[in-house]
């Protein structure tokens, strides 16, 4: 286990270095942000002065060496548009806004998915199964911006302001964005639990468990579900990664001050430091979640051994 973790840590360092390096050069290939900082009536001399103030007139390798030297200190430079430390901005948007939205959606999409998937599998081709599959299809195929706007209209406008239409700060603000963000992964998880269970329920050990006289609940939740859970864990890990790296549409519709909108707005504005800091955080999140998912496999399935 220790060797595994050490190897994954080194692997993670390499991946994160690779990602930030690629992003460093890639964003610079698309041009520089000097023209954003001046009026449209600016001359070349004014643009050149802005570029000089940003230090973008230095050779690219000089900028890269300086960048690599400052990354270990968590210093990704100052945002070109906001004139604030880029990593501080990214972390301000990550915590608590993005983290709480992602975690709430994760809880909704997994906690609800298990019973719904179980009911669907244990009532195969009967009304609850049809209803569950139809609901999953509906939630998966519905565009999240539309669902979000409909929820706002229903809960904020027609139900007399039962829930806020925008913003963050309380559990009431969290409900609508979390439900909207959880809709698609919930549907996916229900289908995964259902199909996984249907397969597992045909296995010999399930028949043995039933033959031993174990109750149906015990058979399903203790024996069958653990084996059906591996694909759900894999997909949930990935979903959480995407949720933690920002949900731009949800953030836009609900005015949620999360990480997604910050980074997405930084890209067309060529705000290099914010893009780099954001991508660094995304890379760390994905690498960490991958390791976590690998570890979880060993918990739910004793047959899985870490090398």
């Amino acid at each position, binding site marked *: 286990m220790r060797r595994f973790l050490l190897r994954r840590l080194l692997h993670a360092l390499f991946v994160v270095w690779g990602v930030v390096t690629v992003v460093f050069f890639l964003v610079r290939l*698309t*041009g520089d*942000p*000097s*023209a*954003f*900082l*001046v*009026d*449209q*009536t*600016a*001359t*070349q*001399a*004014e*643009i050149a*002065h*802005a570029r000089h*103030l*940003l230090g973008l007139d230095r050779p690219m390798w000089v900028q890269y060496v300086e960048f690599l030297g400052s990354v270990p200190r968590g210093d990704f430079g100052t*945002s070109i*548009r*906001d*004139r*604030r430390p880029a990593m501080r*901005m990214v972390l*301000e*948007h990550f915590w608590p806004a993005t983290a709480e939205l992602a975690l709430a959606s994760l809880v909704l999409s997994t906690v609800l998915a298990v019973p719904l998937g179980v009911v669907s599998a244990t009532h195969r081709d009967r009304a609850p199964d049809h209803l569950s599959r139809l609901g999953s299809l509906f939630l998966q195929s519905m565009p999240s*911006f539309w669902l979000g*706007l409909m929820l*706002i*209209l229903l809960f*904020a*406008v027609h139900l007399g*302001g039962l829930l*806020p*239409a*925008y*913003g*963050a700060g309380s559990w009431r603000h969290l409900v609508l964005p979390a439900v909207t963000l959880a809709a698609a992964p919930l549907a996916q998880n229900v289908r995964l639990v259902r199909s996984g269970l249907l397969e597992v329920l045909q296995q010999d050990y399930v028949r043995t468990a039933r033959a031993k006289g174990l109750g149906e609940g015990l058979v399903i939740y203790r024996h069958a579900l653990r084996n059906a859970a591996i694909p759900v864990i894999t997909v949930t890990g990935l979903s959480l990664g995407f949720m933690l790296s920002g949900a731009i549409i949800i953030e*836009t*519709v*609900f*005015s949620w*001050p999360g990480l997604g*909108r*910050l980074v997405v707005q930084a890209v*067309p*504005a*060529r705000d290099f430091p914010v893009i780099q800091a954001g991508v660094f955080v995304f890379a760390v999140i994905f690498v960490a979640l991958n390791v976590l998912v690998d570890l979880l496999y060993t918990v739910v399935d004793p047959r899985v051994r870490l090398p």
Partner: protein
Amino acid sequence: MTHWTASMLCALTGLTLALAPAAVDAQARALDGVAIDPDAELVVALADDTNNMDPRIGMGSIRSNYIRQVFESLVDVDSQGKPVPGLALAWKPVGDLAWEFSLRRGVTFHDGEPFNAEVVLFNLDRMFRRNLDRWGIKDVAAGTSFEKVFPFVSRWEKVDDYTVRVHTSEPSATLWDFIGREPLVPRAWTTKHGVEALNERPIGTGPWKLVEWKRKDHMSFERWERYWGNPPLYKRMRFQTIPEAAARIAALRAGQVGLIEAVPPLDADVLKAEPKVQVSTAVQKLVCRLYLNGRPRDKYDSGGKDGLFTDARVRMAFNLAVNKEAIVRKIFNGYARVNASPVASVSFGYAPQEPYAYDPRKAKALLMEAGWKESGGGWIDRNGEPVNVSLLFPAKHYGQAFDEMTTAVVEMIKEIGVPVTVKPVDFGTQLQVLQKGTLAPNGAFTACRTSNALDADDFLRDWTAFTLINWAPYPPELLALFTASRRELDPAKRLKLLADLQRQVRDWAPVVSLYQEVKIYAATARVLRFTPIPELNMDFRGVALRK
């Protein structure tokens, strides 16, 4: 603008008295017989948050809305966009080569620092990048580099504690405007805490004091109780970022915000029909144009070719090919203006111009007159090459209506037989092309241009120096006329020069003038006396909330 000065100087004292704090009591309990709530909060939904609060960094359309609540300028504007005394009580030319500003007394910044001539001198140093080391402050990449755009401003001095004189090396009719409209920051606060502090915790003299800024979410203000002028009649205000227009409208209908900006044109009439909603509009100093490459070969990365649109007749033909009235009617639902002048209709010195008639037949005739020949359903230019216009447009940057408008313009140009290849790009990519001068010889692009200045001069300088948006430089005679208009201090003569220049620019057609924006606001019935102004910001002085 000396026009204003002459007439205003006498009236200023009276006007100032009218704006004095005593005129409206911030603790008033009723307005026009309606009970109001002086302790209430107004939530205003805006499409985006500002990136920074330091006015030197730039005063674009989003930033201005935030910055001008906190900071003020020497010259203020009234609800019609006309200049009125702000932190300066009066301004006047002193001889041909100086302007004098008489400052308002008794004004304090939100931290208690007094406003006086020293503050103005500090701000002038900052604007023109002088003595930054002496003040111990950093230079910032500024939207407008005053020292480069207005190099004729030579020095400034304190006449007394409340009088500042600015000297120029040549007569400058608009100095009151480009210096007067720049928001002023405190000297002591800035030198003590650095320019970064202006961004983190801005301190101004404005009617609103910033109390909280949660980026990309909201900015909260409190009424500045020691404000020198007409104060807001409610205590707190919150600028809430709601990027999605449908969500802004839903929040307004739910009563969770009191006022929203940037209502889409097609929603305006629907909201107007709702009894609990008030819709108001203001023509903006935002003009949208189709820019055509009319640069000579040595003024861009040309590959040895002049721009396809160096001939004014070709540019005029494109103006005649585009049905602007139809665009305003169909795409903007009437919430935009057709304007043939290069100057926004709400700028001082604007002279209405004869509209470009929609006349495709005449457009074709003009192309032929310019040496183009029709060939197999297309055109051959005067160099014998087949014409195909390459049009860039910044998709999703100015909004959905702008994108639809660009598509409509393309179809109209195709109607006269000119093929157009449309290249939607992100705004940054378009800026890169313009900055590097790599627009193709047959290139064109759509973009909008706004202004913080009040005078026509700011629009008319578009075709002087080579800038991001100057792709058809003035010929010598127009440049001479422009220079004369800048130096003419006699108000009547200058107005005549400006009108003449606008007429000539209209006929010379450096761009295809498409439309001028009308901004739409919607408020709940609780909001009283909100009047949109033709500037980039909203003004809440005198606004009240029904109890």
